[in-house]
C-alpha cells in the first residue's frame, strides 16, 4: 500500500514535471473553488473533500482547493453561480444529474452546454432497499406486497422530481405497484426514516445506505443497472456489493446510472480546460480516489473531450425522456 502510494506520488510528480517543461501550460494563480451543488455531508460534498485530500496529499497543484457549498434551491444555486462566473477558471463544479433535471422541473434558466465540460469522474449506482425487519427477500415479494398494501407503501428519496422520484415512477410502471413518494432533504434522512420504519423502502445510492446495511438494519433487493456492482470484498458479514442482484435479473427492467462530472464555467481558454483535464486524470489515479470508489461502490470511469460530450448528450436525452414520461416537466 505504502509502496503504491509512493509510486503514485512519483508518477504525479513526473507528470507535473513534464507539464511544467512543456512551458505553454496554464496554472491557477488563485485558490481553486470546488462548487458543490448539495448540502454539507452529502455525496457531492464527500467527493469534493476526497479530491481536496487527494490533491493536497499528492501535491497535484500548488494552489489550495476550497470547497464551497451551494446547495440552495436544491442545487440550483450552484448552477446559477457557475453560469454567472463565465470566464473564471478558478471554479469547478461537481455536477450530477441535476444539471439535466432541475432546468426541466423548476424552470431554472440553465443549460449545461453553457459550461465547459472537463471530465466525467464516476458513475453512481442506485439500489432498492427495504427495512430488514420486513419479510421481503426479493423484488417480486416486495412489489407484490406493495400492490395490495393499505395504507400504501412509502418510498423515501432525495428531493422531488429528481432521480429518486423518477426511479420510483418507473418501478411503479414496470410492476404495477403504487408507492407514496416522500421527498426528503438528503439521502441520509431517507436512510434514517427507513431504519426507523417510517418508510418501507428507498432507492438510495450505495454510499447513503452503507452503514445501516453493515449494521443489518436494511436489506438491498436489487441494483438498477445492467450488470452487478463489481466490488467483491465483503461489506456485511455475509454479503458483498457484488452479491446484490440486478433488478433486470429479478424481472424488473429499470436501469439508471448517475454521472459525477466536473465542469468549468463557460468561456475559459483551452489551456485552462487542459490543465483541469490533466488534474482530474491524476486525481483518478490516486489511491485516495480508488479507495473512495470502492468504499462508496461507485463505478470508476474517466471521460473527457469528445467522448464526454457524446456521453452528456446521450445522458441528457435519456434523462429528458424519463422526466417527460414521468410527467415531471414543468410547463
Amino acid at each position, binding site marked *: 500500500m505504502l509502496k503504491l502510494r509512493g509510486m503514485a506520488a512519483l508518477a504525479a510528480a513526473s507528470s507535473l514535471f513534464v507539464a511544467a517543461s512543456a512551458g505553454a501550460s496554464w496554472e491557477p494563480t488563485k485558490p481553486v473553488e470546488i462548487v458543490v451543488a448539495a*448540502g*454539507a*455531508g452529502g455525496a457531492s*460534498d*464527500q467527493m469534493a*473533500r*476526497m479530491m*481536496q*485530500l487527494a490533491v*493536497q*496529499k499528492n501535491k497535484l497543484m500548488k494552489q*489550495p482547493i476550497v*470547497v*464551497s*457549498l*451551494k446547495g*440552495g*434551491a*436544491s442545487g*440550483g*444555486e450552484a448552477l*446559477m*453561480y457557475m453560469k*454567472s462566473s463565465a470566464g473564471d477558471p478558478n471554479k469547478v463544479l461537481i455536477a450530477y444529474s441535476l444539471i439535466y433535471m*432541475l432546468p426541466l*422541473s*423548476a*424552470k*431554472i*434558466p440553465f443549460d449545461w452546454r453553457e459550461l465547459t465540460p472537463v471530465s466525467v469522474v464516476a458513475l453512481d449506482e442506485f439500489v432498492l432497499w427495504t427495512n430488514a425487519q420486513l419479510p421481503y427477500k426479493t423484488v417480486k415479494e416486495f412489489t407484490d406486497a406493495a400492490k395490495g398494501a393499505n*395504507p400504501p407503501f*412509502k418510498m423515501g428519496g432525495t*428531493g*422531488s*422530481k*429528481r432521480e429518486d422520484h423518477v426511479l420510483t415512477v418507473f418501478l411503479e410502471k414496470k410492476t404495477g405497484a403504487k408507492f*407514496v*413518494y*416522500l*421527498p*426528503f*432533504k438528503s439521502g*441520509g*434522512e431517507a*436512510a*434514517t*426514516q427507513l*431504519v*426507523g*420504519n*417510517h418508510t418501507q423502502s428507498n432507492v438510495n445510492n450505495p454510499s447513503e445506505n*452503507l*452503514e*445501516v446495511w*453493515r*449494521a443489518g438494519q436494511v436489506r438491498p433487493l436489487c441494483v438498477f443497472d445492467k450488470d452487478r456492482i463489481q466490488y467483491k470484498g465483503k461489506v456485511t458479514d455475509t454479503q458483498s456489493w457484488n452479491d446484490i442482484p440486478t433488478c433486470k435479473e429479478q424481472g424488473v427492467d429499470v436501469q439508471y446510472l448517475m454521472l459525477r462530472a466536473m465542469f468549468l464555467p463557460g468561456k475559459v481558454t483551452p489551456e485552462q480546460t487542459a490543465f483541469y483535464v490533466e488534474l482530474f486524470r491524476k486525481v483518478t489515479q490516486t489511491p485516495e480516489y480508488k*479507495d473512495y470508489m470502492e*468504499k462508496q461502490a461507485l463505478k470508476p470511469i474517466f471521460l473527457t473531450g469528445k467522448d464526454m460530450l457524446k456521453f452528456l448528450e446521450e445522458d441528457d436525452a435519456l434523462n429528458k425522456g424519463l422526466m417527460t414520461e414521468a410527467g*415531471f416537466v*414543468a410547463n
Partner: protein
Amino acid sequence: MEALELLFFGFKVLLTWKILALMMVGLVLGIFVGVLPGLGGPNGVAILLPLTFTMDPTSAIVMLSCIYWGALFGGAITSILFNIPGEAWSVATTFDGYPMAQQGRAAEALTAAFTSSFIGSLVAVLLITFLAPGIASFALRFGSPEFFAVYLLTFCSFVGLGREEKHKTVISMSLGLLLAGVGMDTVSSQLRMTFGWAELYRGINFLVAVIGLFGISEILVTMEERLALRGHAASISLRVVLGVWKDLPRYWVTLLRSSAIGCWLGITPGGAIAASFMGYNLAKRFSKDPESFGKGRIEGVFAPETAAHASGTSALLPMLALGIPGSGTAAILLGGLMVWGLNPGPLLFVDHKDFAWGLIASMYLGNVVGLVMVLSTVPLFASVLRVPFAAIAPMIVVSCAIGAFAIQNAMFDIWLMLLFGVVGYVFKKIGIPLAPFTLALVLGNRAEDAFRLSMIGSGGDLRVFWSNGLVGTITTLALVLLFWPLLARLLGIGRRRDR
C-alpha cells in the same frame, strides 16, 4: 460499568503532550473562527478541516472536535458584545446578553454564557457516555409528524409571551414565515416568490437577515441615541466569575430544564436549531417575573446557552451512533471522519473502540480546557468595548459584511443585510418585535416541509399528529402551551394575579 472502563481507556489514549497541545491549538482556532462573523460553526470547521489531513485519525478528530468546542464557545462572544449572533443558536443569547453588556455587565454575561455552555455540554457528554446506544435509537422514532410536532411546540412556547401588541407579533411572525418560504420548495421542486430573479433562488438566508436585523440596526440605534458601546466600570476579575458561580445554584431549575430540552432536541435530528429558543421561551414562561426578560436578566443567558450547548453536543450522538448528523457542524465532522476511513454508524463503537472512546474522552477534556481558556479571555474581549465607538462601529459594519458575504459567497447578501438593517431599525422603533421574526425565519421552512411530508404520508389525514404516543404527547403539549393563559384562568391558577 463497562462504560467507565472504556472511558478511562479513552483518557489513556489522550493524555499525551502532543494531543494536549493539539487540543489547545484546536480550541484557540475554534474560538477565533467562532468570533469571526459568518465563520462560526460549520463554516469554521469546514475551513480548518484540511489542516488535519496530514494527521493520524485520533489526533485529527481531537483537533477537529476541539475546534468545534471552541467555535461553540466563541459564538456567544459576539452575540453578547455586539448583538451579532454568529449562529442560529446564539440568537436567543442576544435577547438578554446584549442588554447586560450595555449595562456594563459584559463580563458577567460572558461568564454566565461560558459557564452554562459548559454545564450544558457536560450533561450531554454524560448522556453520551452512559446511554449512547439506547438514546440513539430514540432518534429513530422521529418521522415527519414528530418533527412537525416539535417545531409546533417551539412556536407555541413563543406565542403570547411578548408584551408587544398582538397584531405586531402576528406581523412579525407571518413576515418571517413568508420570507422563509422564498426560493425552492423542496417538497414539490418548484420555485416560489422569486419573481424569476436568480438572486432569490437560494432563498433568504437566515444568518444574513439576522446579521442585518441585529448587528447593523444596533449600530443605527446606538448612533441615534448617541451612546457609545458602554463597557465602563466592568471590573473583570476572578470576583465576577466567582459571583456568577455563587448564584448558579439558584437557577438550578432553569439549568436542568434547558439541559434536558437541549439533549432531547439535540438527539432529534434537525432539532438542535430549536433548542436555544425553546430553552429561553420556557424559562420566560415559567418565570415569576417574565417581564424582566429581555432587559438584561442573567437567567436569559443561562437558559438559551445551556440548551444550545447541550443540543450542540448531543447532536454528535446520532452522528456517531447512526451516521446521521444532527446539525450542520456535525455534518462536517462526519465528512472529516469519512476522510479518515472511519464510517460513523451503528458499528463505529464496535469496529473502532479506541477511536470512539478517545473522542468521548476528548469531549470531557476539551470542555474543561475550553472553559478555562475562554474564561481567561473574558477580560480581553470585554476590553474591546473600551475602544472608541467611532473606531469600533465601522469595524463592526465591515465584520457584518464579511459575515453576510461568507455564508453564501454572494454580493447580493451584503445588500440584503443592509436592507434588513434598516428594517430592523424601523421595527425596533415602532415596537414590532424581532424575536418571532427570527424564530419564524429559522424554523418556518422545516416546519412546513415536515407538515407537508406528514400529509403526503398520511394521505391528508390530520389525525396523524395523534397517531402514536410520542407525537400525540408533543402535539398536545404544544396546544396546552399555546392556550396556557386561557387554561390557567379556567383552572384558577391565575387567580392570584387577577386580584
